């Protein structure tokens, strides 16, 4: 039962607190991503699970067992690093064999296991090649095969795709999830890339400033973010500032800075509360009547067109239209925008200001 549990974890480096109040349970066979901007403490967290560093307070439990003082090689963990760490003087097969060899398996297994995992990452035909002869994506697949070949039931992935080209990264994401699910592994994957996190995870743990902001499935984090930071970080969103006018049973009415009243989901706010309305670009539509705006920028995105406008309420709003749409959009044109009352989510206006609340670095 390789479930991983973090209980009341705090980690301090001198005066700096890198992690605080971390409570997290990862189920057997679950694929969990720890997501957050640079410096949010995600790498510190994965290193504590690995046993590379010890927490200042709290406990790491693996399979219910307290890991205090247990070194990495006894934790049943495979680890893949961001900067591909292969032995340059060993070929792909040699690199993958390294795990089973140090674990003193019998000879037959040492022969067999590496080949099985090289096949899994589709590199059996390149097993005699040295790292310098392999592409970046192939090298990272060898690192993965090596981590898997150790037989560990828990796989820790520390920004495993960050060093790769965008296109290669996209392909490897799906591979990572397929392989680890096929093997039934418990995976903890650290990344700063929200798109990557959405694609591979069963659950995402979103971190900021050493704390967990929110933990949920990709779908719930995107559709029902509980926090303004989440709404902005996981997927793109538009944030409009206003004041609650009235809350009805089926919707909230919000007055924007120019006096326009727009709709959002029902909420617990009272009239007069200062709020931020979050609405995804794909949920905003041009209409004959609505929030007035002027087009400032038009960007071709391939399968859709991103239109960026300045609203009469002085908010910046992005929305998307299909490339096959008949209507012609030009910079300087006026448009009216609407959205469904079910798509707008309200958050209390943060005391430190919206920009500060969503700041990435």
């Amino acid at each position, binding site marked *: 039962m390789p479930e991983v549990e973090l209980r009341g974890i705090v980690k301090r480096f001198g005066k700096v607190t890198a992690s605080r109040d971390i409570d997290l349970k990862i189920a057997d066979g679950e694929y969990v991503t720890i997501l957050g901007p*640079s410096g949010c403490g995600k790498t510190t967290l994965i290193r504590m699970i690995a046993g590379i560093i010890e927490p200042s307070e709290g406990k790491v439990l693996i399979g219910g067992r307290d890991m205090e003082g247990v070194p990495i090689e006894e934790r049943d963990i495979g680890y893949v690093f961001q900067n591909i760490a292969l032995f340059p003087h060993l070929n792909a097969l040699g690199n993958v064999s390294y795990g089973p060899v140090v674990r003193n398996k019998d000879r037959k297994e040492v022969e067999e296991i590496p080949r099985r995992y090289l096949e899994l990452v589709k590199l059996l035909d390149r097993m005699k090649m040295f790292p310098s002869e392999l592409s970046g994506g192939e090298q990272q697949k060898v690192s993965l095969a090596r981590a898997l070949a150790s037989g560990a039931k828990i796989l820790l992935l520390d920004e495993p795709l960050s060093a790769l080209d*965008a296109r290669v990264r996209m392909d490897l994401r799906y591979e990572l999830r397929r392989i680890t699910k096929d093997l039934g592994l418990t995976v903890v994957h650290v990344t700063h*890339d929200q798109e990557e996190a959405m694609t591979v995870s069963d659950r995402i743990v979103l971190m900021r400033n050493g704390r967990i902001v929110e933990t949920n499935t990709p779908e719930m984090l995107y559709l029902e973010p509980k926090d303004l930071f989440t709404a902005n970080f996981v997927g793109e969103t538009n944030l409009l500032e206003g004041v609650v006018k009235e809350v009805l049973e089926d919707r909230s009415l919000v007055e924007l800075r120019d006096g326009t009243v727009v709709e959002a989901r029902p909420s617990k706010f009272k009239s007069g509360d200062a709020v931020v309305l979050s609405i995804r670009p794909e949920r905003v539509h041009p209409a004959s009547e609505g929030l007035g705006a002027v087009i400032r920028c038009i960007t071709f995105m391939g*399968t859709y067109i991103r239109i960026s406008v300045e609203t009469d309420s002085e908010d910046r709003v992005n929305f998307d239209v299909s490339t096959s749409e008949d209507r012609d959009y030009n910079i300087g044109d006026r448009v009216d925008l609407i959205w469904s009352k079910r798509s707008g989510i309200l958050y209390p206006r943060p005391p430190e200001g919206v920009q500060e609340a969503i700041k990435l*670095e």
Partner: protein
Amino acid sequence: MVAADDLELTVENGEYLCLLGPTGAGKTTTLRIIAGLTAPDSGQVFLDEKDVTKAEPEERNAVLLSQTYSLFPTMTVAENILFGPEIRKVPEEEKKRTLIELLDLVRLTKRADSYPRELSGGMQQRNALARALATNPDVLLLDEPLRALDARLRIDLRHELRSLAKALGLTVIHVTHDQEEALVMADRIAVIRDGRIIQVGTPREVFDSPATPFVANFVGQSNFFTGSILCSGNDRTTTVHDEEGRVVFARPCALPVDSKVVVAVKIGNTRVVKKSDAFLTGTVERALFEGRIVHLDVDVPGLGRYSVKLPASRRDQVSVGDEIGLNWSVKKASVFPYPEGGLENELKVD
């Protein structure tokens, strides 16, 4: 090894051009040749119609911003910016003015006395940009300027970087491996592979009318169908069939009947439809929620995996295991002669 081969490219004054290609395509080499840091074995470089092939880097009025920024760690933000003007013995008054202007431009006025290690990744990037601009160049050469930054920050900084270059009237050549970055930022994109430029065009041209199957798949992923032409000709929809009798349609092409071809259609332009309207049918293997869209992998028997980006609002209509139909708008599908080295080899990105 030939890093850049038979390379021809003209960049207009004030244009923002993205040089897009996979690692090892020769992007950085090309940039270094323009900057004068690497000499070409043959061929010429012109800046403002003047042959600068033999000119020293500092005589070129083109400045290269490297991927790692190369800021001096023992110098402050301000000292880094003034490094160039200092060497060129620019008068004190002018140096002061340049510094104030540039700090303001890249929003680092408050951090003028900080050292690089005290800055976030985004600030270091802006510091390096300001240093590059201090030499007052006409041409800015950017080597993966956003690569070292977090994914989310990268997206936010795209517009900022482009607007800045446009506001200063600079001619920019921006090297990237990220097709989305190129689509969003470029006036024109030059797709480079194995040291050769395969296609130059506006983002829309490169995306909608790719010159080769490689471009079709590198700039926004594509689904492919291999077969031979059943019917083609002027302004007629191209009909392509395979040996199993499957038939798909694509935009008009000049290739004769019976030619072996591949049809490419972007996964974002591939639609989920009723089986009666389908070109192909298959079973949904995976449905991955990605926010505004759901990524579907569909196994089409005998053809393998097709991918579809379904708007998330339709996600309740499809689940894993369902048998679904696929088709596409005929004008969104391109036809190419079957590549000589095979399709897999043609599409290789890594």
